């Protein structure tokens, strides 16, 4: 499987992360998104007219939506990441996969404005990002009260992977995660998964990391 990839793209990272968690081999083809704008080059537009990355190629199959890529990788390598097959759970997973697009548009949009100086209405993006985070916090708090740590149960699914990166990187768009204790616990649970890999801005859990207060010097 070949992934058209950008190291700083949370959507590309979703695919790399699930591949790592399921032991799926990916061939990475780096795309010069910033500063080069290669995703808008004729060659990549021919592959994906929407002009977005990631793009996943597997033989004849070309996927341009990260949620579809997650489902494909899970179905091939580790179906447990698609849930138990219970109708309500399957539907909820779909619900969260759709919800993840709101995170991309809002939190991801704010991050692109703040970090890579892309055009956009920062205040509006941040406001819709906060709204989405509040919904997520409420849902995860309910899960916690039931004794479940992940979005749809006690085990992680593609839904968690789809929502994780943009939430974890919300501070890149100047949106603090301090007001959301259930989200922070959930982020930690994802980072603690066996085979977890990091991306810039999302660090692994360090036992040896100094206390934040000491780090600031």
């Amino acid at each position, binding site marked *: 499987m070949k992934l058209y990839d*950008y*190291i*700083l793209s949370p959507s590309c990272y979703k695919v790399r992360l699930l591949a790592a968690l399921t032991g799926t081999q990916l061939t990475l083809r*780096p*795309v*010069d998104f*910033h*500063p*080069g704008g*290669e995703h808008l080059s004729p060659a990549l537009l021919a592959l994906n007219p929407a002009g977005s990355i990631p793009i996943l190629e597997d033989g004849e199959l070309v996927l341009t939506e990260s949620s579809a890529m997650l489902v494909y990788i899970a179905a091939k390598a580790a179906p447990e990441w698609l849930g138990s097959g219970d109708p309500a759970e399957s539907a909820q997973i779909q619900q969260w996969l759709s919800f993840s697009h709101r995170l991309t548009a809002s939190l991801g949009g704010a991050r692109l404005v*703040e*970090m*890579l*100086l892309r055009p956009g209405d920062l205040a509006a993006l941040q406001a819709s990002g906060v709204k989405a985070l509040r919904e997520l916090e409420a849902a995860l708090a309910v899960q916690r009260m039931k004794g479940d740590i992940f979005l749809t149960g006690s085990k992680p699914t593609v839904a968690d992977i789809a929502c994780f990166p943009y939430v974890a990187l919300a*501070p*890149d768009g*100047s949106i603090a995660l301090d007001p959301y204790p259930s989200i922070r616990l959930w982020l930690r649970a994802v980072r603690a998964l066996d085979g977890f890999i990091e991306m*810039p*801005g999302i*660090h*692994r859990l*360090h036992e*040896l*990391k*100094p206390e*934040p207060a000491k*780090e*600031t*010097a």
Partner: protein
Amino acid sequence: MSDPMIDEWYPVALFSKLDAAGRDTLLMGHPIHVARTGSERVAATEADGRSLPVRIRYGHVWTSLGEPKKELFDIPEADEPGRRLVDVGVVRVRCSPLRAVENFLDIAHFPFVHTDILGAEPHTEVEKYDVEIREKEDEVWATKVKFFQPQAAKSAAGGITTDYMYRVPAPTCSVLYKTCPPRPGEWDVITLFVQPLTEELCDVWPWMALYDDEADMTDLIHFQQMIFLQDRSILENQIPRRLPLDPGMEIPTRADMTSVAYRRWLKRHNYTYGAQLVAQ
């Protein structure tokens, strides 16, 4: 503004990406506009129309709000034939411009922030190295810096002990020289050019001049962006937000001798834009 930093040169655009429409940006709190006016010409103007001095060098457009007393610092290696010149692209960081440079100078954070790339536990020890303020050049230099690295560069296959030299030729710019795996005896050049937007906000323009004939240009860009983005989250959470220049505030350890020299040099020149002068 009496700060002598006003007479320094600052990067304000990537030359290759600058078009005639140009870029509105900030320099030390002043709105400025930078635009291309010809194939090898650019113009920088203040809001009132005053035109500012410009230079095109090291892939970037440089300007100054004041009257630069010196030419833009020289990086002789940049003109050596055979080097790949890498425009890494801008990244905005909510931190003091001086903090951004100070973090770049500090190798003690490698194992914790750039884990398994520029450093790894348990190899966290920084060996003794030399730091000086070179009077003739008026620059801060750290030399004979050695550090064990699992993947020092895109071109490094496995772990090696990497030699480093750090240089601060201007208050918001640093040049790093490091072991060049494909060409022993030569130094790869990695720079951090910082544009101070305000005292607590900057646009950072990393740039490199490398001997590496193998790697894809995109891989080189992504490697450096990955490294810098790992720093970004740390930089945005530093307290105090400005760089303390009161020596009583911090206890120097061997690992941040370069930082101590950098701060001493800033103080000597009264370079205080982005600095905190009294303990809070």
